[in-house]
C-alpha cells in the first residue's frame, strides 16, 4: 500500500514539475510533508541540502530519500520509478515525433522558438547559482559587499578555462571543489 502511495505521489511530482529541479521542490514538500507526513519539515530541509551536495536530479534524490525513509530500498526504487515514469512516456513520444518529423519546417520553427525560451530559463537559473555561490543565499543581500572573494576567483577562473581552453566541465567542477576545500581550510 505504502509502495503504491509512493509511486503515485512521485508520479505526480514527475508529471507536474516543468523547468528543472527547483520547480519540483514545492510539489515534493506538498506530497511528502503536507499530504502524507512522510517527512518532517526539518527532514525536508535536510534533503534539499543533501540533494544539492550530491550528484543527480533533485527530484530523483528526494524520491530515493523519501522511499528509503518510509519503505526501505524497495520504497526508494518504486518512488524513483514513479518519478521518472511520466518523463519516460512523454519524452519517448516526443523523441519519436522528433525523429520522424525533424526536417519538417513547422517543427524546426517550434524548436527554434523554444531555444531562446530555454536559454532564458537556464540563464535565470545561472544568475541564481552565481548569487548562491557568491553570497551563500538565493537572493542578493542588502549589503553587496558581503561577497565571498574565494568563490569569485574560483568562478572566474572556471569560466575562463571553459571559454578559452574548452576543458572538460567535470574537471572544472572537481578542481573547484578541491580548491575550495584547500583555500577555505587555510583562511
Amino acid at each position, binding site marked *: 500500500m505504502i509502495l503504491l502511495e509512493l509511486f503515485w505521489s512521485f508520479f505526480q511530482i514527475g508529471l507536474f514539475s516543468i523547468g528543472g529541479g527547483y520547480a519540483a521542490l514545492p510539489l515534493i514538500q506538498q506530497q511528502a510533508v503536507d499530504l502524507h507526513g512522510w517527512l518532517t519539515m526539518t527532514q525536508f530541509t535536510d534533503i534539499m541540502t543533501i540533494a544539492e551536495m550530491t550528484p543527480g536530479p533533485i527530484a530523483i534524490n528526494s524520491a530515493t530519500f523519501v522511499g528509503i525513509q518510509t519503505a526501505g530500498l524497495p520504497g526508494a526504487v518504486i518512488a524513483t520509478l514513479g*518519478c521518472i515514469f511520466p518523463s519516460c512516456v512523454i519524452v519517448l513520444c516526443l*523523441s519519436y515525433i522528433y525523429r520522424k518529423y525533424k526536417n519538417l519546417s513547422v517543427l524546426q520553427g517550434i524548436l527554434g522558438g523554444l*531555444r531562446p525560451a530555454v536559454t532564458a*530559463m537556464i540563464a535565470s537559473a545561472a544568475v541564481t547559482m552565481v548569487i548562491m555561490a557568491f553570497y551563500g543565499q538565493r537572493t542578493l543581500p542588502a549589503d553587496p559587499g558581503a561577497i565571498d572573494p574565494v568563490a569569485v576567483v574560483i568562478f572566474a577562473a572556471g569560466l575562463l578555462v571553459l571559454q578559452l581552453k574548452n576543458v572538460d566541465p567535470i574537471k572544472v567542477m572537481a578542481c573547484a571543489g578541491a580548491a575550495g576545500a584547500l583555500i577555505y581550510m587555510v583562511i
Partner: protein
Amino acid sequence: MEKGLYKKLFLSTFQLSACTFGGGFVIIPLMRRKFVRELHWISEQEMMDITAIAQSSPGAIAVNASVMTGYQIAGFPGAMIAVLGTVLPPLLIISVISFFYRQFRDSLIVSLVMRGMLAGVAAVVCDVVINMLRSICSQKRIFPILMFVLAFAAVRFFGVNIILIILVCGLFGALDRKIQDKEAKA
C-alpha cells in the same frame, strides 16, 4: 557490436550522471562533450534540439535528456538503458547517504568542498548560457534575440509560469518560420 553500443551507452550515462552536480541541466554540457565531440553519436544541432525538448518537458531535465539521447542513439532500448544509467548513481548514493545523512550534512570537509564546487558549477552553467546565447546571436536575426530578452524578463522578474512561456515561444517560433518560408518563396 550492438551489445558493445549498449554497454558504452550505459557506462557513459552512468558516469555523466554521477558527475552532475548542482541541478539537471549541468548534464547538458557533459552530454555534449561525450556524445557530440568525443563519440560523434549525435550532431551539435540534435543536441540543441534535445536541450530544448528536455527543458520544456515535465520531469527531471537529466532524465528527459537521457531518454531522448538514448532514443536518438539506439531507439527504445537505448532510451531505457540511458535512463537506467542516469538514475542509478543518485539512487545508490542517496540510499547509502540516507543512513548517515546528518553526519554527511554537518561534515566540515564536505561543506567546504561543496562551497568551492558551487562556484565551479555556476561557472559551468554560465558557460552553457554564453554558448547558447552565441548560437542565438549567430543567426543574425533580431527575432530570437528579442524572444530571449522577453523570456528572461518573464522568468526572472515577473515570475511568469514556465509552461505559458514555452507554449508562447513555441507558437511564435512556428509563426516566425512560416513567415520566413513565405518570404523565401516570394
